Structure formats: structure tokens, C-alpha cells
């Protein structure tokens, strides 16, 4: 039975009707949902492109497409998945929907800027994808747009680069909004160390968005200057330095990995104590490790460039710093596992996603250590091993956390429950598909199969077949998950305020929440994961 007392934000009649009540709404919850639908649409596009790539690699030689199309498809897959899906991902969807509620506020600090950031996101996406429909076709450089090829290719680089530039503004505005909201709008009594961990990770992420994104913005403009005006920043023929491009690109793009993974870690830090029914182990250690990741993450970009021809001093420094940045991530993993120790665990879908997150994140993280060491990196650089590592972190880490988050907060967002058995079945098939798809790529890379190659020698055939079959299994799991969630959003059983027994503030408001979230701003007197007391006390 529902225990709702107010009209929900969905039912509230504003000044506008139909779709305009959504696309012109400044309500943080509606904006979060707008982001969700946009991001899911782009995610499914990226998945289809990924499946096509795996289909091409089913057998050596040409299978379903020519080499130029393959190059364009892996570029589009990367651009869409990075810039349109995982970078905005958790912060834009769950951060928007939940941050104000979790800190006891009625909205974010700048609601109109919040709506503007969604519009900029849509505008940037349209510009980036317009290259698909222009003569010359989409870019074929890979999502990294490396110089000097990026200003020599005849494909449509400029729309993709300008699109990514515009998307950066959306990211910066969201970061500013979250930081100001957290500084200024926490409920009375919510001191910094009484704030839940998801908002803490959004805080760390916000700083990275503000400080790192302008660097890639400038870099992308330099590519435009290079292509249009022949300035010579990066072209050796004009006195430029192509390695400078790599520095500038990765000074943003490595911290961007932390824009992706920090909120994912935040979501996992919410799910685990709720389903362990136990206070999180080492709250302060998790907070400090979040800030440490956000800070040290700025200084490790060079590990993407170990074979580029950097100085020996830089190589040693970046390798050392890369090993150091692994420490705060490991602290988090130990804390999550310690929380589960002797816990009374509810085995529900969000927990399965969180537990499998730990498994795949560990594999992704440890393979990252292999890549962070200078000697092994020389062997593994630009092989399928890197692709496997990256997907274990970004798809396995961020993707699984996103899935966990959507199953965890689904009752809060839609006010309904999903079919638990179908959710578990979907997770299991997805997880099996994921491992089948990406584990063989570690072996392929270790054996020497390069990444971004359209063709391969016969000895790589077997693992590639397994990997392609994995992509089909993963797609099946995804279809089941989507079917379950889409159907349940309208037909599921009505959810209560707190179906999982969570302790953070979002579980004290209606499901779905009312327009202003709280009838009265709550006064916070306890820690966010205090499982000793009843939440209603």
C-alpha cells in the first residue's frame, strides 16, 4: 500500500502542458529524468554499435562491414558512450534527482542553470552526431581524436569535436550547481561528516568537472584552429608537438574517468549498507579516499602515454603516481567488503548489481595495475587487453553501478516496484554475457591482438567467437532488464516510502517525491547510516 501524503512531482500541474511541462521544467527531478531518457537512448545506440563491432570480429577478414565503416563505428561508439553516456551518467541522472533530497533541500542551487545544462547537452549531442549525416561521414580517429591524424583525416572531425566542446559546458554547469548546492543548501544539522556518501562523491566529481573540463575544451578548440587555420600546435611539420596534444587531452580525460567512477562508487556506498542492514564500515575513510581520488587522479594522465616517447623522468613519475591512485580505490573496496562482514544481507537485485560491481571492478582495477607498470605496459599498450581493462572499469564499474542505482532508486523515482525475479534473471544473464564478452579480450590482448583492428590472424579466432557470443548474451540480459523496468514503471506494484529499509533522507519522503520534496526541511541529528535506531524516531 502506498503511504503517500502529497501530489507527486509527476502529478503536480504546472503552467505548461504535455512535453513542455518536462523540457522546460526547472524541477531537479524532472531534469534528472530528462537526462535518464536521453542517456538511455544514447546508451542503446552505443550498444548497437558495439554489437556490430563484435559481429565484424566474429571471423577474420570482412564479415559485415568494410574497414572504413569499422573505423567510423568504433569512433562513434567511443564518442557516444564517453561524452554522451558515462561522463554525464550517474551525476546528471541520479545526482540531479537525488542530491537535493539526500541533503534535505527543495532543489539545486541554480534550477534554471540546471535546465540550461540539459539543453546544452542535447544541443552538443545533436552537433556531435550531425557528422553522421554529412558528406565525408563520421570521424574515424577513435574517441581520443589524436593528433596529427585528427587534422588530416577527410572525415567530419569538426562537428564531433565542437559537439564534445559544447557538451563540456553542460558538465561544468552541473558541477558548479552541485558544489554550490552542497555548500549552501544542506539541511540544518547536516554537517559535512553527516552527509551521505553519494553526495560526497558528487562533490568530488563536481570539482573535477569544473577544473578539468576547460582543459579539454581548449584542446578541442586547438584542433579546430589546427584544421581551419593551420596554426601548428601539434603538427611537427609546422613546428608543433603531437605529444603536447596527448598531454592536454589526457590531463582532462584521465580525471574524466573519475567523473565517471566516483558517483558510481557513491551509489555502491548507498546500496551496500542498505542491503547489509548495517552501518557502512569506515565512513570517514571512504569520504577521504573520495577526495584523495579526485585530487591524485589529476596527476596520473601520463600512463596513457607510456609508449609515446615521453622522457624517462616523466615515465617513472607517472607510473609511481598511478600506483598511488590505486590506494584510495582499494580502501573503498576493503570498506565495502568489511561492511558485508557478518551482515544480514537482503538478496535483492540492487545488491546483486553492487556485489558484481565489486567483482568486475576488482578485475578492472588489478588489470590497471598491470598497465600502470612500465615494463608490462610496453607489451600490453594498444592491445585488446586495454579495451578489456577499460570496459571492466567503465562498463563493469560505472555501468553496473548505474544498473544497481536504477534498481535501488526505481521505487523512489517511479513510485512502483519491479518484478524482483525478472530483475535477478536479467542481472544474471547480463553478468554472464559481460564476462563472456570481455574476459577473452584480456587473453587476446596478452597474446598480441591490437585494439581497433578490423582484421586478425587465425590464432585469435576462437576467443573472438566467444567474445562475440558474449555480446549477444549481454544484449539478451539488457532486453530483459529494460522490459522489466519499462513495464514496471506503469504497471508495477505501488511502492512504499522505504521499501528497502534505507536510512538516508530520500527514504523519508514520498515515492515518488512531491514537487518540493519535503513539507518541512528536516533537521538532521544522526549519521546517514545509523542502523541502530528506527528511521522514524
Amino acid at each position: 500500500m502506498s503511504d503517500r501524503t502529497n501530489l507527486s512531482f509527476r502529478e503536480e500541474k504546472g503552467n505548461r502542458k504535455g512535453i513542455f511541462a518536462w523540457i522546460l521544467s526547472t524541477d531537479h527531478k524532472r531534469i534528472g529524468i530528462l537526462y535518464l531518457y536521453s542517456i538511455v537512448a544514447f546508451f542503446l545506440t552505443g550498444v548497437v554499435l558495439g554489437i556490430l563491432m563484435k559481429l565484424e570480429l566474429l571471423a577474420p577478414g570482412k564479415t559485415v562491414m568494410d574497414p572504413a565503416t569499422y573505423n567510423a563505428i568504433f569512433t562513434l561508439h567511443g564518442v557516444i558512450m564517453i561524452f554522451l553516456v558515462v561522463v554525464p551518467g550517474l551525476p546528471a541522472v541520479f545526482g540531479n534527482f537525488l542530491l537535493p533530497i539526500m541533503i534535505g533541500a527543495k532543489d539545486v542551487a541554480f534550477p534554471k542553470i540546471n535546465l540550461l545544462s540539459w539543453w546544452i547537452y542535447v544541443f552538443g549531442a545533436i552537433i556531435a552526431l550531425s557528422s553522421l549525416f554529412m558528406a565525408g561521414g563520421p570521424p574515424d580517429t577513435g574517441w581520443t581524436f589524436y593528433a596529427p591524424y585528427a587534422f588530416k583525416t577527410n572525415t567530419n572531425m569538426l562537428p564531433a569535436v565542437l559537439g564534445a566542446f559544447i557538451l563540456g559546458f553542460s558538465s561544468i554547469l552541473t558541477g558548479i550547481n552541485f558544489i554550490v548546492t552542497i555548500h549552501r543548501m544542506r539541511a540544518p544539522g547536516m554537517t559535512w561528516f553527516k552527509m551521505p556518501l553519494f553526495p560526497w562523491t558528487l562533490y568530488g566529481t563536481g570539482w573535477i568537472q569544473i577544473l578539468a573540463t576547460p582543459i579539454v575544451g581548449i584542446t578541442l578548440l586547438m584542433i579546430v584552429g589546427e584544421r581551419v587555420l593551420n596554426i601548428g600546435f601539434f603538427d611537427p611539420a609546422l613546428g608543433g608537438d603531437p605529444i603536447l596534444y596527448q598531454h592536454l587531452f589526457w590531463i582532462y580525460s584521465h580525471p574524466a574517468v573519475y567523473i565517471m567512477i566516483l558517483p558510481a562508487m557513491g551509489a555502491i556506498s548507498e546500496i551496500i549498507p542498505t542491503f547489509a542492514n548495517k552501518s557502512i564500515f569506515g565512513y570517514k575513510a571512504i569520504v577521504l579516499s573520495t577526495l584523495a581520488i579526485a585530487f591524485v587522479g589529476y596527476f596520473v594522465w601520463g600512463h596513457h602515454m607510456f609508449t609515446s616517447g615521453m622522457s624517462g623522468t616523466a615515465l617513472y613519475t607517472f607510473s609511481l603516481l598511478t600506483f598511488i591512485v590505486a590506494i584510495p580505490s582499494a580502501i573503498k573496496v576493503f570498506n565495502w567488503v568489511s561492511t558485508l562482514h557478518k551482515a544480514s544481507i537482503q538478496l535483492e537485485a540492487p545488491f546483486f548489481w553492487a556485489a558484481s560491481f565489486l567483482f568486475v571492478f576488482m578485475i578492472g582495477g588489478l588489470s590497471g595495475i598491470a598497465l600502470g607498470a612500465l615494463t608490462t605496459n610496453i607489451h600490453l599498450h594498444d592491445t585488446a587487453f586495454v579495451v578489456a581493462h577499460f570496459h571492466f572499469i567503465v562498463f563493469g564499474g560505472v555501468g553496473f553501478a548505474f544498473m544497481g542505482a536504477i534498481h535501488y532508486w526505481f521505487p523512489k523515482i517511479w513510485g512502483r516496484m519491479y518484478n524482483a525475479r525478472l530483475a535477478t534473471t536479467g542481472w544474471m544473464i547480463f553478468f554472464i554475457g559481460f564476462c563472456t564478452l570481455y574476459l577473452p579480450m584480456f587473453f587476446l590482448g596478452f597474446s598480441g591482438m591490437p585494439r581497433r583492428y578490423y582484421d586478425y590472424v587465425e590464432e585469435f579466432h576462437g576467443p573472438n567467437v566467444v567474445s562475440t557470443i558474449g555480446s549477444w548474451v549481454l544484449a539478451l540480459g539488457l532486453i530483459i532488464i529494460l522490459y522489466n523496468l519499462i513495464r514496471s514503471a506503469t504497471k508495477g506494484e505501488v511502492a512504499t516510502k522505504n521499501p528497502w529499509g534505507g536510512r538516508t533522507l530520500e527514504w523519508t519522503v514520498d515515492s515518488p517525491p512531491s514537487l518540493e520534496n519535503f513539507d518541512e526541511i528536516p533537521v538532521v541529528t544522526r549519521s546517514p547510516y545509523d542502523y541502530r535506531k528506527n528511521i522514524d524516531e
Partner: protein
Amino acid sequence: MSHQSDNHTVPYKSYLWILAILIVLTIISVGVTYIELGNLTVFTAILLASVKSTLVLIYFMHLKFDNKLLQYLVAAIFILLGLVLFITFLDYNYR
């Protein structure tokens, strides 16, 4: 949180002094490009730019009157940027 916004009027004279210092520093940063400084070229340019932006932040953007937490955060950003540049030049200076 401290609210000191009502009583931190800065006299125009101070603003004019800061403006004069900024103009002088701009002239120096142009002038210094005529001197061959080798490895120190970028360092000098960034040092001068940092001094100028610090003055703007402190006086024109009123950081001087803001709470300590914000002052520390801005200082941390400068340190971060400095470290990023330092590490970048571990490549360029030793290549």
C-alpha cells in the same frame, strides 16, 4: 557561516593601485618575451599570470573578505594547477 558582506567596501584608490600593478605586470610579461630565458620561459609567463590572477581574485573578486574555506579551496586549485604544469615539464625538460 560568517556574513561579512556589509562592511568590506574597498576604497577606489586601492582598486586603482591594483589596476596600475596589473598594467605594469602586463607590460613586463610582454617585455620579458624579448629575453631568451630557455627552460624558464614558460615558468616566467605562468608566474606573472598567476600573480595577476591572484590580485584579481583577492581584490576584484573579494576573496579577501570571503570565508576561510573558500580561500583554501582557491589556494588548492592553484596548487593543483602548479603540480599539473610541474609534471608536464618533467617530460619537456628531460626529454
